[in-house]
């Protein structure tokens, strides 16, 4: 049985919102609010200090899910689990972003596969560097969902290459 192509739409945005809020709230007991959802076409850049990326693989397309966070957010939330006496190093922050990305994608994947999208698991990797920009160069559509922990913002980015990208 063939799979249903994924669309960059409000349903996927809701899946991502739910997954991110759940991952942060359950793990760190910190409230997160979802902000606006932005759709665009072509190249896009996101800023942050740590960016967890994971591949979205499906019969009709492949794509990327990315979670970009500043070190300031990680320094705020990680002590909720690691305690206040542990110095939050870059290594610890990288480890955390990889795991948060993994938890977010795990939930999104489950939601998509319940709708017959047959998405396969990608391997997460984390890009780091102070105030880095992650730029995607492609012609398809993208979707950015912003989140807030207090005043601090972080973002998720999804792009799809393939049949459904223009959907």
């Amino acid at each position: 049985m063939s799979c249903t192509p994924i669309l960059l739409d409000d349903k996927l945005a809701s899946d991502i919102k739910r997954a991110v809020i759940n991952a942060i709230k359950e793990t760190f007991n910190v409230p997160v609010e979802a902000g606006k959802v932005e759709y665009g076409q072509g190249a896009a850049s996101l800023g942050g200090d740590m960016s967890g990326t994971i591949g979205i693989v499906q019969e009709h397309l492949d794509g990327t899910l990315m979670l970009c966070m500043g070190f300031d957010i990680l320094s705020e939330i990680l002590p909720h689990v690691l305690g206040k006496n542990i110095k939050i190093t870059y290594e610890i922050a990288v480890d955390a972003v990889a795991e948060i990305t993994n938890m977010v994608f795990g939930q999104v994947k489950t939601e998509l596969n319940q709708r017959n999208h047959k998405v396969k698991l990608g391997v997460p990797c984390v890009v780091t560097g102070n105030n880095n920009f992650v730029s995607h160069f492609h012609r398809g559509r993208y979707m950015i969902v912003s989140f807030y922990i207090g005043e601090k913002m972080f973002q998720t980015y999804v792009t799809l290459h393939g049949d459904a990208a223009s959907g």
Partner: protein
Amino acid sequence: MNQLNTLKILIADDHFLIRQFVTNALMELKIENVQGANDGNEAIDMIQRAKQEGAPYDVVFLDWNMPTILGIEVLSYFRAKPEYADTAFVMLTAESEQQNIMKAIKAGATSYIVKPVSAPDLGKKIFEINEWLKRKRRVSGGMFG
């Protein structure tokens, strides 16, 4: 009779965040004999050494995706050895799809935890696992085999 606070637990997960998260949840239950392994190889060594020293782990949390050896492979390795039949193996994973849960149960997992999990929910799982341990150690047979 197993008291929760006497349980000896190993958390095998390559992510420090998760090892610490599970450790905190166990500390809330006054379970203090908790150790961590960074990957599947280290987990196998620690589990075998603890058994040889006469102080085996009661519960082993295994992350599904770990470097060197996957958690599910560690589980299969020990489930093939009857002397570990009364060790509880709990799979930790971000995968919540039915086929993965079935795969873990078939491989002999005592329980299955999908991340993210809240500390209270993890606590409830520990109570269930402790009941499994009590039953397992009273009679042969168990939750999943």
